[in-house]
């Protein structure tokens, strides 16, 4: 239970992305639509996984990915779980088009079903990770009980990890001026937003192995930080997606 199993061809990591595509994702951040910033950050994370999965000229399928976009319904953008080699073969990710509402509970429920089906075959693999990105209050049912159930699921490497990226300018009392020097959100960090507090309850502690991987990329999150990022600028959104791909891999 220490999140040290390395992602490999035989023991691939599973990452499930839950992407909020509610209408507010059309709003601008740094003169760019939020949804486009998320698309760029997700594309960069996929590229990073390709980087970590190449040996010689070959891409070894060390990561398996599902991308669920949600509004008032859930859209499985990859039609199931796909290997990083299959995603690289296609070259680009499916479009993310904002729709209306933001029913994150439905997305977490679908993630739970995927995990229930996958976990029995993943006993030697790294603990799976669910990366949730949202910019607002959930409509529909409360996602927290479902997220808690997911966080209690486990493989020998550790419990399933849940990460939250919350695109908001009002989450912390101080702006983050230097994302690379930022220490992260701790259990005791004061949050200005009720929804942010809920998302924190749904966020796993950052495993030490992930923290070390991020430190190699010069992001200095402190021990005890949670897997929660305030997406107040594009760099923080990007860090959030990089965190999702920080499963240990063989050098």
């Amino acid at each position: 239970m220490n999140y040290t199993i390395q992602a490999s061809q035989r023991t691939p990591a599973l990452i499930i992305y839950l992407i909020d595509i509610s209408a507010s994702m059309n709003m601008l951040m740094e003169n760019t639509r939020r949804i486009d910033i998320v698309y760029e950050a997700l594309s960069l994370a996929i590229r990073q996984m390709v980087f970590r999965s190449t040996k010689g000229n070959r891409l070894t399928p060390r990561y398996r990915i599902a991308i669920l976009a949600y509004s008032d319904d859930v859209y499985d953008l990859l039609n199931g779980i796909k290997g990083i080699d299959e995603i690289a073969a296609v070259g680009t990710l499916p479009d993310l088009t904002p729709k209306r509402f933001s029913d994150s509970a439905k997305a977490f429920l679908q993630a739970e079903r995927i995990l229930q089906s996958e976990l029995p075959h993943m006993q030697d693999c790294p603990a799976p990770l669910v990366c949730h990105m949202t910019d607002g209050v959930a409509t529909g049912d409360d996602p927290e009980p479902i997220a808690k159930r997911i966080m209690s699921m486990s493989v020998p490497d550790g419990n399933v990890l849940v990460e939250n990226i919350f695109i908001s300018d009002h989450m912390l009392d101080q702006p983050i001026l230097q994302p690379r020097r930022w220490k992260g959100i701790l259990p005791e960090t004061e949050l200005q937003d009720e929804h942010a507090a809920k998302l924190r309850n749904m966020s796993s502690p950052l495993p030490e192995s992930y923290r070390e991987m991020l430190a190699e990329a010069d992001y200095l999150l402190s021990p005890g930080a949670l897997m929660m990022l305030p997406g107040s600028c594009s760099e923080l959104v990007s860090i959030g997606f990089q965190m999702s791909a920080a499963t240990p891999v063989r050098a």
Partner: protein
Amino acid sequence: MKTNTAAAQDVFSFVSSQSAEQRLSTYHGRFACRYAYGRAMDSLIQGEKGQDFVGVHIEGDSCNFVLCDGVGQSYQGDFAARFLGNTLLDWLSTTREWSSAAFTGFMKDITGAASEQLKQLTPPGEVPSLLREVLEDKQRLGSQTMYICGRIELPSAKKKHGRIWMAWQGDSRLRFWKNDMEISEHFHATMLTSERWSTLTGPVGGSPHVYQTRLEYGVPARLQLYTDGLDDLDAIRQLLPDEQIQVLLDAPHTGGLQDDAAFLELQW
């Protein structure tokens, strides 16, 4: 490649092929030398080169050796391991300057030739564009390898003191026994995953670690080097029989090796 050109003169060389396995084998002369090489099962199935390298050259009382572990996430880690392994074997047999500064300088000086050769290894054209872009990024960052190299000059009845000189960067294992007592803990703090050699910049993560000591006549010793593909050996302090080391190389418990493995053991 193995040559034992003149057993009577006690000359022996072995350089691993990265495209074939070498079962555990032994050479007996003034040194007893056990060596082996295995590729990860994934590489074996795909017919790919291994990214480790091991080479040894024994000539009478002296022995030069190199062990490399190419960094899989760098560009063509097999290239860095092979280039550095062969280059260091040459250097060990010709240099007269054993200072840390001279060695560090040498490790920087060879990056030009390495980078020139790496340029020729362009990514294949038929791969998906995203993979090709990533491979091109990696090529710009260079090829990397961890390494341990060294030279042993044995003492003799006429020459009371011999010498061992070693240098390394990375987390490959370097274990040393004198009189059956393991003294490897002296090296542990310096075997760091973050350190390696790069075709682009030379030493990465710090300067090479250099160790040198006298060897006393009549004191038996054992030096064991292996890459992390054989990390099952880490907990074993006693001298393992050949067949047990071969079992670790065959790794039936995991359906073959999960990572490439190179092994070299010298006893005198």
